[in-house]
């Protein structure tokens, strides 16, 4: 095959792959120092300011009042006391009559009516005398 004819024949795929592999493996031109310096200067010039934690705001009136009341634990105690007071104030207590009934119920059972007293009274016992005793005369 003449040289001219051969020059018109494309490289085989194998040959082209070897050319490309050789070029890919070749050491790359190092980054010029001057370029690196410029890139670093650009980066630092564009860099946002370092982020710091946000400063704590000055305590307001409510914060100061809470502190004077003992902080969170003090407020918890106050809340518990308030709730207890509210409950005592709103809960319906047992009527006092029920209590006295419970206390006096036994006495009532052992306390027969006046008619029973008089019925069981010994012979010759006078009602009037018993009534007078009960009246404290």
């Amino acid at each position, binding site marked *: 095959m003449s040289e001219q004819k*051969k*020059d*018109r*024949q*494309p*490289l*085989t*795929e*194998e*040959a*082209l*792959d*070897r*050319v*490309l*592999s*050789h*070029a*890919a493996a*070749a050491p*790359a*031109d*190092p*980054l*010029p120092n001057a*370029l*690196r310096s*410029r*890139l*670093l200067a*650009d*980066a*630092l010039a*564009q*860099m*946002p*300011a*370092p*982020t710091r934690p946000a400063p704590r705001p000055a305590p307001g009136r409510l914060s100061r009042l809470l502190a004077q009341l003992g902080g969170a634990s003090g407020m918890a105690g106050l809340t518990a006391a308030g709730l207890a007071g509210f409950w005592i104030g709103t809960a319906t207590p047992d009527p006092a009559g029920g209590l006295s009934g419970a206390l006096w119920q036994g006495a009532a059972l052992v306390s027969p009516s006046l008619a029973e007293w008089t019925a069981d009274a010994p012979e010759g016992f006078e009602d009037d005398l018993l009534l007078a005793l009960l009246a404290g005369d």
Partner: protein
Amino acid sequence: MSDAASPSDEALLRRYAAGDPEGARLLLDRLSPRLYRLALRLLADRAEAEDVVQETMLRLWQMAPDWQSGGAQPGTWAHRVAVNLATDRLRRRRSIALDAVAEPADGAPAPLQVMLDADRETALDMALAELPDRQRQAVVLRHLEGLANPEIAEIMGVGVEAVESLTARGKRRLAQLLAPRRADLGYET
């Protein structure tokens, strides 16, 4: 891929955005040599390649505070910007050349034949320069930068099939362009 000793590009960019200059240095030293090599391959001009790298990195720093997770990795994003900037420069260069340079006379030697004393790498660079922009990008990213087709597709903004097609056509054309340079390439095939 990253671990504690080698943080991801995105982690470094976040450190930079938080005001950590070390994040900038590490990311710069990781990305800029690759970008420089890519730009040099596409443009075959050191000064222009440096400009492309500087512009690309500047845009990355400016993007850093608003960088969105889950999208492209900073390295892929930077490759895309560099490829686009290089393409713009090639188009400008081409339009200037068309305006400024007289049409070659019939029978004038092709640019590749003029470079009789060029070495293998120059022959390849010259042949790459003859390729259409998209074919050159695909061939350089795939065969010289060693990127995978899905990443090239992301960089070039096309599908994987389009990348395969561009690469195949680019290689066919390269094989034709390099044919007269067999001796320079050292492959008598």
